[in-house]
């Protein structure tokens, strides 16, 4: 089992979701996040005081998948989230020891 975490641009979320659904991924967990990186933020001004807002809004997805599906999932996300502009985000993969479905207590593959 692997955990794929992807940080993407917010307006790409819908496309990524559809692409993953087509690729057979039935579930995921989404959090709002802010990204810091090469993509620069913007400047805000409040009564003459300027703020450099360094963070840019991102969507963070977590998908637990069977180890065999990691390649597909990662490349599906990458393809769907790409705009080619700085700030498209990252996808990383982490090993998972076990998964449980809370409703049934099923574990591992059966839990997905």
């Amino acid at each position, binding site marked *: 089992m692997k955990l794929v975490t992807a940080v993407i641009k917010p307006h790409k979320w819908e496309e990524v979701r559809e692409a993953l659904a087509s690729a057979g991924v039935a579930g995921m967990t989404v959090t709002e996040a802010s990204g810091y990186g090469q993509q620069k933020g913007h400047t*805000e001004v409040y009564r003459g005081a*300027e703020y450099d807002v360094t963070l840019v809004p991102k969507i963070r997805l977590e998908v637990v998948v069977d180890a065999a599906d990691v390649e597909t999932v990662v490349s599906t996300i990458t393809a769907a989230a790409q705009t080619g502009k700085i700030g498209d985000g990252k996808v990383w993969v982490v090993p998972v020891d076990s998964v449980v479905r809370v409703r049934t207590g099923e574990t591992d593959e059966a839990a997905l």
Partner: protein
Amino acid sequence: MDTGDTAWVLASAALVLLMTPGLAFFYGGMTRAKSVLNMMMMSFAALAIVPVLWVLYGYSFAFSPGGNSLIGGTERLGFLNIGVDTAYGTIPEFVFAGFQLMFAIITVALISGAIADRAKFAGWLVFVVVWVTVVYFPVAHWVFDFGGSDGEGGGWIATKLEAVDFAGGTAVHINAGAAGLALALVLGKRTGWKRDPMRPHNLPFVLLGAGLLWFGWFGFNAGSALGANGLAGLAFVNTAVATAGAIVGWLAYEFVKEKKGTSLGAASGAVAGLVAITPAAGALSPFGSVILGLIAGVVCAAAVGLKWKLGFDDSLDVVGVHLVGGLIGTILIGFLATTAPGGGAPVDGLFYGGNADLLGKQVLAAVVVMVFSFVLTYIIGKLIDMTIGFRIDPEDEVSGIDQVEHLESAYDYTGGSGGSPFKTGV
């Protein structure tokens, strides 16, 4: 001059001023969180620019004696020749001028709903200056200037055609609605229209806006009696009950279609009713006003769907609510007007045994204002677009117009993260 009449028109003018911030919330709540400030700023730009022009020349071209049936005279340029003792009917002319100023502000602000999320703010500033000058001031003269004692120097709709427009169904709502349609066509659809979700980001704000609008609208309509009298009372009651009827109408339409009633529907129904009763507030009985409201609620609820079919992105439904609502109100006067309560109806409408004369006048006034406004607005919009540009970059639309055009974010609930130490620009 009558102090009671003056007191009511003063209060009314303040009420109408409040409608524009109310509109800012009605519209602002409907946008996405990343563009609420820009939406509100379009209203505040109207609040900033129109009064200045009003002093310079607007009031004069709309209401000064010495003009003709198409445009006012020049005696009031720079607000000259008015003193605290100058009367306009039973009230000081300053009070009348202050009251009418508020109508000019809100009319141009209404248009902004059609072009949410995508208009260059500089383009909007120019638009406000030009539109209010070229379109609003003349139309206000046509409709609201009744001229001297013999009608001399008054506007053609008020004094020649003698169509009934109690508080601005043509001059304000048909005018703004047609202009909204024109601008929506000039600017084109929002990036992601029909693809991305564009849900209202804050429905309580929409309800707040609707509440403030309703409140202020009593000044708009009952204040248009220009006195504290029975006609003001009739207009007040009609404004209350037609609005209620329109909420009932809009929610009923939703209950039929969706089995539920939405809060956006209730707020929209209220505004649709307020729009529709505007021209009719002095000319209908309260019972007729309820009917008018019900019709406006149902028809506008259906009309806001048209844009999806016809494919124009009138983002916050200026056409469906103000153009359609304004037409309903203006034209139904031809059917529902009644002289019974002794209000402002000159003759009975068709349903009360009158003839079709009045209806004809109403239709004519509505159509002329609609066409005039649409054509001129389209031209103004195109000129702005071709010169300084009227539309922001699609990328900026995605990241949010507030950041780009106003260098601000509307909300920061975390208060800790996300901003780096500021450097003051001083």
